[in-house]
């Protein structure tokens, strides 16, 4: 029996059906507990190419349009059906929570372009901490900085009414200095783009794209 190529986890089975996959294979759903996975049977993993990436993306977009909640699966996830069931069983609660977060929502992506600015020096930890605690405090501050986009502050008053969740990834070499992923209600994309256009940032130029399926709001580590 061939393996299954997993496209997405869904809040419910799509109607009227899931259509075809990136190799024109018919899609079907696999149910594990409350979770629904959209899969296609495939003998081997498709090669990475612009054509296969765009085909995969097209499948995800079509599925996203057919259901209220979707968690896209990363390109190249080919595994046995029993392996899929094991993974979904082991992480069912986390995945159900993630599906609840993205239900009725979609993703907008901001790329912040500009010159690299050295991060502000973190506040020194209190002297009464031991060396181990100081180390952990510094690591925590570093972790926080890697997930913050202070360049966006002037925009936040305009975006806050629209944004339901945020993920930030900083990049350490210009011109791309950060990627910010926002989860918004479906249909709010035009209002979001208009809000981004309202304010020119001093510290970076913003390129907004979307709406996208909520790729950046899927659980990271399920391997």
């Amino acid at each position: 029996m061939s393996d299954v190529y997993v496209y997405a986890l869904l809040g419910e089975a799509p109607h009227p059906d899931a259509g075809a996959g990136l190799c024109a294979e018919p899609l079907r759903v696999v149910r594990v507990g409350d979770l629904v996975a959209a899969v296609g049977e495939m003998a081997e993993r498709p090669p990475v190419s612009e054509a296969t990436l765009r085909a995969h993306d097209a499948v995800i977009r079509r599925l996203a349009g057919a259901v209220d909640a979707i968690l896209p699966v990363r390109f190249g996830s080919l595994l046995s059906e029993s392996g899929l069931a094991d993974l979904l069983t082991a992480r069912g609660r986390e995945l159900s929570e993630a599906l609840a977060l993205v239900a009725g929502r979609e993703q907008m992506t901001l790329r912040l372009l500009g010159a690299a600015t050295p991060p502000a020096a973190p506040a020194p930890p209190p002297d009464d901490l031991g060396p181990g605690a100081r180390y952990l405090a510094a690591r925590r501050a570093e972790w926080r900085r890697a997930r913050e986009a202070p360049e966006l502050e002037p925009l936040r008053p305009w975006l806050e009414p629209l944004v339901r969740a945020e993920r930030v990834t900083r990049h350490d070499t210009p011109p791309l200095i950060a990627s910010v992923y926002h989860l918004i209600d479906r249909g709010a994309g035009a209002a979001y783009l208009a809000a981004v256009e309202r304010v020119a940032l001093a510290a970076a130029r913003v390129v907004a794209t979307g709406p996208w399926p909520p790729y950046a709001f899927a659980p990271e580590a399920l391997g």
Partner: protein
Amino acid sequence: MSRRPLTRDEARAIFATTDSSLLEVIDNLLTKGVVLSGDVVLGIGGVDLIYARLSVLLCAVDRLLEVQGEMREDSRPRGGRPQGGPRQ
């Protein structure tokens, strides 16, 4: 033709044009989304890997623009068959 890094304006232009949709698709599909198998193509994306991929892609787009430029020059009146180039 010598390679040179993208200027910031060029990078902005690429992100701001329709070419950016391919960058977004690649970032979404290769570094985001649920990871279901341990040996996903190109590995699991950390911050550095995400940047590296986008960076590599920017360079690839840069090269593609160069090739298109060469093709336009080669197809001008002096004739000559446009030179193809690697599409990365």
